[in-house]
Structure formats: structure tokens, C-alpha cells
């Protein structure tokens, strides 16, 4: 440390001395001697201005680098978000396709085997095959992607909720605002005229809404005193607001992070939303907001016609 300081001071003295000598050599009138003080003062001034200009240059360079790196970070964040969206889409599409395959193709083949076994009076083995098909495979398919969601969010939620649950679904998501059919002349496409512009949710979002409500209901049902649960799904601009409200015991303090909260956290973060768990007048209310781009059946059909989305 001391050696470095000594080196810097030496360099400073050498720089000032050499500048002073330079000024002495290039003075305009050799006969006109400058005072030593003037030479030193000019030297210090030149040195200082040089240091300042170098400093400014370095500062500008660092500032530019910082600005560029800020832009790069923003670009990276954008890329990361877009990758996250694609991952969610791929994840839900794969879940959906595997679920459909298990529900359709695999179960159908097992059903055929089972029928043939029954035809040959092998009912016991047929029962085992049925058990595999109707319990294990169905459960697994359901975990991957609840099959009722293939019909609509409403069908999925109606299938999910028990009798003690009041389900209030936004009109824009309801089957009652379904489309009327209109077939093209080639008949190769299914299109429609929406009556009330029912919104079409991406499968990833429908899946997230389903899982969030499922978790909310599971939390509410853990409290034995709960007799009534209200689930509301509302479309507000570019967001979906979900609330699950029960009439059970209230929260006594901050909720510790468990699997359920982690799940809420993941979904709200994946869809740029937020969630809260707080006491209400009668019990506890879980609120979650998930962001999305509203696309109606009409928009979707128009996009399909324009070829801006894949078939």
C-alpha cells in the first residue's frame, strides 16, 4: 500500500516536472525567462486539466457501459419473461396432449381389452384392467390436465367444486355466452359467431386458474368448521381476479410459507400477478390476480382466418 502511494507521488512529481521543463523549452521568447513559480503553476494547471479530461472520459465510458448494461439487463429480462411464457405454454400443451392421449387412446384400448376379456368370461382380469383404466390412469390424466378443462374453464370448475361451494363465474367466461355455429363451405374448419364474445383462455392460464382454486378450496376445507365457500372468477380488463372466501376461523397471524403459498407465488409470478391471504368479515379470503391478453372467440376465429396463429 505504502509502495503504491510512493509510486503515485513519484509519477505525479515526474509528470509535473517534465511538463514544466517542456514549457521552459517551448516558451515563445527564449530570452524571456519564466519564474519557477509560474512554470510550476502552469504545469500543475495542465496536469490537473489533463487528469480531469481523462477522468471525464473515463466517467463517460463507464456511464455508457452502465447504460448499455442496463439496456442489456432490460433486454435479458424481456427475453427471460418471454421464455417463461413459452415454457408455461409448452408445459400446459404437453400436459394437455398427454392427458388427452391417456384419456382417449390409452383408456379406449384398455376398454377394448377389458371387453374382450369379459367376452371370454375372464371377468376378474377385466376388472383389474378396468381398475387400472378408470382409477390409476384417470387420476394420472387428471393430475396432468383436468380433462373437463378441454371443454371449458366453466366445465372444469363445475366439475371441481363441491356442493357447499358457490361458484360465480364472469359472464365472459361462461358457456352461456357460447358461440353459434357457422361452417365454412369447405367444412374443413370450425368457426363461429360469438353471441357475447366469450373469452378463450390459453390452456396454461385455464390450468393455473383451476389449480389456484383447487388449492384455495383445499385450504378452506382443511378447517372443519367451514360450511360455506364462495369462489369468484372475474375478468377485469387485462386481468383475471380469483377469490376463494370461506366462513371458517380467521388467521391469527402471518401465514407461514407452505406448499400452497409456494404454488400461489409461482402462479402469480408466472402471470405477472399478485396474491393475498387475509381475514374477511366472515372468515378468510384468498385473492389472486393473473394478467392475460383477452382474446374472444371472434378474435381467435379472425386470427385463424388471417393465419396469424397456428392451426
Amino acid at each position: 500500500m505504502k509502495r503504491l502511494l510512493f509510486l503515485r507521488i513519484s509519477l505525479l512529481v515526474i509528470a509535473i516536472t517534465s511538463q514544466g521543463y517542456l514549457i521552459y523549452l517551448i516558451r515563445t521568447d527564449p530570452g524571456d525567462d519564466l519564474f519557477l513559480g509560474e512554470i510550476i503553476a502552469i504545469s500543475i494547471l495542465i496536469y490537473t486539466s489533463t487528469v480531469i479530461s481523462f477522468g471525464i472520459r473515463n466517467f463517460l465510458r463507464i456511464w455508457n457501459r452502465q447504460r448499455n448494461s442496463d439496456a442489456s439487463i432490460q433486454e435479458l429480462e424481456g427475453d427471460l419473461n418471454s421464455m417463461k411464457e413459452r415454457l408455461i405454454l409448452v408445459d400446459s400443451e404437453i400436459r394437455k396432449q398427454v392427458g388427452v392421449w391417456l384419456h382417449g387412446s390409452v383408456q379406449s384400448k384398455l376398454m377394448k381389452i377389458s371387453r374382450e376379456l369379459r367376452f371370454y368370461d375372464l371377468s376378474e382380469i377385466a376388472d383389474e384392467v378396468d381398475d387400472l383404466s378408470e382409477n390409476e390412469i384417470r387420476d394420472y390424466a387428471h393430475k396432468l390436465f383436468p380433462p373437463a378443462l378441454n371443454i371449458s374453464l366453466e366445465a372444469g370448475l363445475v366439475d371441481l367444486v363441491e356442493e357447499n361451494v358457490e361458484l360465480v363465474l364472469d359472464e365472459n367466461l361462461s358457456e352461456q355466452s357460447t358461440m353459434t355455429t357457422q361452417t365454412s363451405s369447405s367444412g374443413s374448419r370450425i368457426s363461429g359467431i360469438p353471441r357475447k364474445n366469450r373469452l378463450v383462455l390459453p390452456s396454461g392460464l385455464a390450468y393455473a386458474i383451476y389449480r389456484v382454486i383447487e388449492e384455495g378450496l383445499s385450504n378452506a376445507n382443511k378447517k372443519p368448521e367451514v360450511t360455506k365457500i364462495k369462489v369468484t372468477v372475474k375478468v377485469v380488463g387485462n386481468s383475471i381476479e380469483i377469490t376463494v372466501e370461506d366462513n371458517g376461523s380467521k388467521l391469527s397471524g402471518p401465514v407461514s410459507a407452505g406448499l400452497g403459498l409456494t404454488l400461489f407465488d409461482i402462479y402469480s409470478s408466472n402471470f405477472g400477478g399478485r396474491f393475498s391471504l387475509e381475514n374477511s368479515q366472515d372468515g378468510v379470503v384468498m385473492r389472486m390476480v393473473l394478467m392475460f391478453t383477452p382474446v374472444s372467440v371472434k378474435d381467435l376465429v379472425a386470427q385463424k382466418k388471417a393465419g396469424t396463429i397456428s392451426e
Partner: protein
Amino acid sequence: MFVEDDPHFAELLSAVFNSSEQIDLRASFKSIEDFVRTQASEAQSGNWYPDVLVMDVMSGVDIRFDGATYANSLRTSGVRVGVVLVSSMVLGKILDVFRKTNPGGWRALQKTSRLKSEEIISAVLEAADEMRTK
């Protein structure tokens, strides 16, 4: 008329309907797209639609379009047709969603190896009766 993409179940439905004296099978389709294609060319001429349409829920080539929503949209557009939905899942509560939109004429069958011919026939006849009296 039925729409069923699973050849084994389609074979079963054909066998059941052809052997029944109460049911006259008009046509069968392997997918919703198949149904739509024929509908586009033939539905304008005369009484093309049957009394009852047996529709597999997941019989679309494009999995974003399901048979239940399509059948419901047919009803919404004014086609008087009873609908028997067929699926591996239990459709009980889900059927109520469609009943709310278009009351009457809805039945559901769950695809299992235990499903009997009589159950299929009675679902079709009940859906037809309900549409007639509606």
C-alpha cells in the same frame, strides 16, 4: 347419427344401433371436422339433422375444439337435436352447464367396458323424447 374417433367404440355404437329396432342410424363420423364437412354440404337440403346426435367429447382433430361445445353451439344456433355426450370422464355435473344454456335433450354416457347396450339405447331414446316434448 354419431361422431366418434375411437374405432373400437364406434364399432360398438354401430353394432348397438344397427341391432336396435327403435333406432335408425343415419350416419357416423370419425371426427367433428368430418361431421362439419358433411354438414356444410348437406345440412341445407331438407331435414338433415337427426333426432339425436351421439357426440364423443374429445373427437376433434384439433383438440382445442371439443364435441360438447360444438353440440351446444348447434343447439344455440337453433338446431333441434337431442345430444348424448360420450366420454371417459364422468359428465354428470358438466352436463348441467349445457342444460342451463339449452334446456332439455341432454344425456351422457361414460365409456367403460361395463357400459351395456341397453344403457346406450335408453340414453338415445330419452334424449329424443325430451326434445320432442320440449
